[in-house]
């Protein structure tokens, strides 16, 4: 996904909480990388993204 298209897409998320925006951005990056895979193993990565974000908010 080009930088420009990603920017346009992320503009749609501007009304959401910054933590939600950060999670969405990273989830999209992971999904993009595994787009070719029929059974992408991205759940572990998504859990990590969410856990990091929760820790960041707690600290």
């Amino acid at each position, binding site marked *: *996904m*080009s*930088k*420009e*298209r*990603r920017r*346009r*897409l992320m503009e*749609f*998320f501007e009304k*959401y*909480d910054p*933590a*939600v*925006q950060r*999670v*969405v951005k990273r*989830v*999209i*990056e992971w*999904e*993009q*990388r*595994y*787009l*070719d895979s029929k059974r*992408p193993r*991205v*759940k572990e990565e*998504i*859990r990590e993204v*969410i*856990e990091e*974000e*929760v820790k960041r*908010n*707690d600290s």
Partner: protein
Amino acid sequence: MILETLRVKNFRQYYKEQKIAFSAGPKNVTVIRGSTGAGKTNLFSAINWCLYGDDAGLGTQGEIVNKKALAEAIKGSRVDAEVELRFRHTDSDGSEHSYVAVRSTRDDSLRLSRVTKKGLEELPNPILMLNTILPKDVRTYFFFDGEKIDDFAKPEHESQIKDAVYSVLQLEVLERGNAHLNSVADEYERELKKLDTGGVLEGLTKEKEQKADELKNAEEQLGRDRKELNSARDVVDEMDRELGKQRDVQGDAKRREQLENERSRIEDELEALFSTLRDLGSTGYSVLGLELLTKASDAINDKRQRGEIPAGIREQFVRDLLEKAKCICGREISNDGPERQTLLALLNRSMPSTIEDKILETSGLLLALRAKSQQRFEALVNLKKRKAALDDDLSRVTKEADDITAKLEGVAIQQVQILENKRRAAQSRANELFVSVGRSEQQIRDLENEIRDLNHRIQKTEGLEGKAQAVQKKLSLARQAGEAIEEVHERFAQVMRKRIEEETKRIFGMLVWKESQFTKVELTEDYRLVVLDRWGSPARPELSAGERQLLSLSFIIALSRVSEGSAPVVMDTPFGRLDTQPRENICRHIPELVNQVVLLVTGEELHGHTLEILKPKIGKRYFLDWQKSTGCTEIVSTEAQV
């Protein structure tokens, strides 16, 4: 993505190594001309095979390798086909890099490297990288057979159009993201259920507060009882002193005072003895297990004696003796002496040092436990004997004191009777209070134990609830992110659909020669590509094959522009079914609409005025020269002729 060069080696009819450089920039068109069968489609396939392997649909490896090269190969030697594609790409961070993609029939795997100042840096996961450049499903909308693209414009091809929009705009990324976030959220929900304490913490805290109140009351009551007990005892002591002054009963009074002191001492000792018994009681399990400990220890000793487990000598100790050839007593251990044989026999019986360590450790532990249990058992027996002796003493002392009291009550002296009555009342009260104090002390001990236990349970529950809170936060964030993606997915798809519709309409207007006939193009909510005529009626069924091709091309170019993906458009035989006017329109407009165009054409497709229109935009031009004598094709640059 901008294509730079394509190098083919022994690929299909391309014998040995041959190369094409693609044009980009203001002259962004590369024309590769060849007759039917000269190898246009195979060159088109080479790009697809290099990047996507089997998915290019080329068949077996044997069919990929050049037949002339195979025929010429020395028997037993291997010949491989290889394709290398160099391209530039602007990464998601905005930086532009050059890449080299290579695939060979040797291992049929894609090697993708980034060009750096130090040379080529091979990327560890080329497929993942390629997905961020031009995913497999998306490339079919950029690298296509011109004669087969009219599918989009045929009736009832909504699903294909929707697939194209979803693939090129990568809406699937959002769909998958939403699905995976929901799946992760479901996992968090299951974790949360396991951690649910059902409000136990609140109940435990309340119970603890209640017990703490009870403890406070018991302690206050104990303080009051002790104070009153001391007062009652003071009265008894005072009465004893007064009675001691009465000459007629002086002896008995003094004796009773002695007995009371003696009784007090015995009771104190009994109290201390009970306390020791309580402490021993809390470790009673080891006393109860004495028999088992003895059996276990005996079993190990028995096995050791039979040589089934090593003796209490460590393997390392035996090795040290053998190495030093000297016993710890100073005696020499000669090489052929019996001492050395004994030591070697010991060593042969030894087990791995870790097992030996464990056995030695267990034996030591059992011995220590057994000794401690024995000590406790003996202490219990002694305490029991002492208690029996104290009970006897207490009975004797109490009886003698009671006898004296009865005797003094019978003395017919008024003053003595008054003192004795006061003493009896005080003593009676002191006895009651003594019982009450004992009861309160026990109650306080029980309450303290209960509070300690509650604290432990509260601590454990707090840990669980703390974990539950953390999982709840993760669950909430995963759900929020999933919902956000779902909402945005719908809005983003709508906005993009409208933009594709506008672009398709604009481009179709440029390409079609009857632009006044077709006034409107719509991409409906259910992804139907609708063309309306000047009377507002759907005109798609009336479109000719060429017009359908133009509509499809317009849709693809619109997709490319809206997606901002900047992929090149590689068209194989694009003009076969088109008349002069639409051909000219394509040549006039397409180079302006996309970043890079590669046209694989026959001589009949691109000539005369059409070629003249395109010429200012052509940067590179090649001719595919199929040679009858070899059955192979040579790529010939015809730039000089442009």
